[in-house]
């Protein structure tokens, strides 16, 4: 399954957006322009579709309620709307889906958030249309939940719910993994910040785990100086699983270091390589270039390419959306991927594809990094630098 188009209304700092999405999409923008907010749409839908501890009310609560979610630029029309077009090419025939979710505050009484619209279409045929049906009219309470989150109601579009729920978001924060014990932080569901990476690795069946770790080891051998071996061991006393890396030095056997001793870059690379190998579904990568040496960043597009190439062989296809500031990363992507540019403005941010003249420049010699990245640079920096 793959998302082919996304429309937004009043979503965080986007008053409106309507953009096509490719198998691989790069999201570019200045700081605070809304790159993470853009990726958050898919995380929101994942929480809505999750069967354990998910649902639309949970997704709203995680984000501080609808008032925090709704764009500040929504003046007349207070509805928050997400519309997606999807394509499923895993079967012999291509199936096209459309899912629309609108949310609005009740406007009276408890000010609950109600579903103002929920529509599902398969190949143009309407499967669900809320709230224009008898049941919703009879019992307004039903509008506090979506049908996407209800196993009893989503039978006809279960594939859609499963797809949303399988989204992976990765923004590994090495410090959380290294100092998890001291911070004592709760691990959010689906572990976006990588604190639970060890548990996730441990939960993977041994054969799959070994195969993946072997591939990671091979990559690390080339990327991390002095690194020689990777192993995944259970501590005999605490019972906790640990990732250990061996670094060669003057002693014959080198030294084994646990994940909390590894460098930030090594950890982020391990997290990235693990996420790329995990099963299908949408993969959201937040600035994968962080903490990594430029020479390694240059290889990230190739890594992602390899994952995408496997797409045909797998039953579930993998789509990747990457937010980035990195020139090096963009220099190495090929022309087939899509870039989206987020531009902040007085009426909220707008997100757009490259225009015709930009595409022409890219087609004839220039790289997306040369054409598009300068447009996301804040003007003030060039004028005077960062004054303190």
């Amino acid at each position, binding site marked *: 399954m793959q998302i082919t188009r996304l429309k937004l209304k009043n979503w965080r700092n986007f008053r409106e957006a309507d953009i096509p999405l490719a198998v691989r999409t790069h999201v570019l923008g200045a700081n605070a322009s809304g790159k993470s907010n853009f990726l958050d749409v898919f995380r929101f839908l994942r929480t809505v579709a999750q069967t354990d501890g998910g649902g639309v009310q949970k997704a709203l609560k995680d984000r501080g309620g609808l008032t925090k979610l709704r764009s500040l630029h929504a003046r007349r029309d207070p509805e928050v709307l997400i519309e997606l077009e999807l394509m499923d090419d895993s079967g012999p025939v291509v199936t096209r889906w459309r899912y629309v979710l609108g949310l609005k505050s009740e406007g009276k009484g408890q000010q609950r958030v109600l579903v103002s619209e929920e529509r599902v279409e398969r190949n143009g045929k309407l499967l669900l249309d809320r709230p224009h049906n008898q049941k919703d009219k009879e019992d307004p309470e039903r509008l506090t939940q979506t049908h996407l989150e209800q196993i009893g109601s989503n039978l006809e579009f279960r594939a859609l719910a499963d797809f949303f729920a399988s989204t992976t978001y990765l923004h590994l924060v090495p410090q959380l993994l290294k100092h998890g014990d001291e911070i004592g932080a709760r691990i959010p569901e689906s572990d976006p910040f990588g604190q639970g990476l060890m548990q996730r690795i441990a939960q993977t069946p041994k054969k799959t785990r070994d195969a993946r770790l072997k591939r990671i080891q091979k990559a690390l051998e080339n990327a991390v100086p002095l690194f020689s071996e990777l192993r995944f061991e259970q501590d005999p006393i605490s019972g906790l699983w640990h990732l250990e890396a061996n670094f060669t030095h003057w002693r014959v056997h080198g030294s084994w270091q646990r994940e909390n001793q590894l460098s930030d870059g090594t950890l982020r690379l391990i997290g990235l390589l693990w996420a790329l190998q995990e099963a299908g579904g949408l993969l959201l990568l937040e600035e994968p270039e962080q903490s990594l040496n430029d020479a390694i960043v240059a290889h990230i597009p190739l890594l992602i390419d390899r994952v995408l190439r496997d797409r045909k062989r797998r039953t579930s296809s993998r789509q990747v959306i990457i937010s980035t500031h990195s020139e090096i990363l963009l220099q190495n992507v090929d022309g087939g991927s899509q870039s989206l540019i987020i531009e902040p403005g007085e009426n909220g941010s707008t997100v757009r594809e490259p225009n015709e003249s930009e595409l*022409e*420049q890219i*087609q*004839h*010699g*220039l*790289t997306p990094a*040369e*054409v598009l990245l*300068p*447009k996301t*640079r804040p003007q003030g920096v*060039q*004028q*005077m*630098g960062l004054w303190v």
Partner: protein
Amino acid sequence: MKRILVVGEDALCCALGEQLVLAALPGWAVAGQPIDTKGVTKLIPALPRYAEQARFVQPVLCIADTDGHCVKEWLHRNSPANGHQNLLIRLAVTEAESWLLADQEGLAHGLQVEKRRLPRAPDDVLDAKGALLQLLTKSKLRYIRDEAVSPTDRTRQGPGYNLHLSNFVRAFWNAERARESSPSLARAFKNLQKLGDGNA
């Protein structure tokens, strides 16, 4: 409005290229922000790509330093095989800083340095950057003295060198004035005008 892409080997070359276009090609606009290749070693391998851009999309002005090499030799060695009349490679003799030094009035006013210390023939100054840095250490502006020149080694550039000099070029530097005293700039100016006429 016609557009031209500016490519420079550093931020200063980019700023100079922008001002050159503004002065020599009235009615033209610089296509987006100039591309800073961050070093001549990255500019040279990219030249065939810019030649393709010049052939199919828009004229390209590339600015680099000769760094003491002979211009003819440099061009012979590094010009791309797919060169095009719309790809204009101009080299500052000996460095981009020579072009900066060529506008004495602008320099004295914008960077607050003494005019009488400025060289008459900047193209003949062997180490233009060194000469400029020496002038900057005597600037009346504190932020130029403190940031454009390295605080530990007064013969090297400081962390704010590119930023302050690029801003100076945009705000004070005048290509018309500068070409009077720099023959290499005058040639670049003329060729740019010729490129404009060719695309009229």
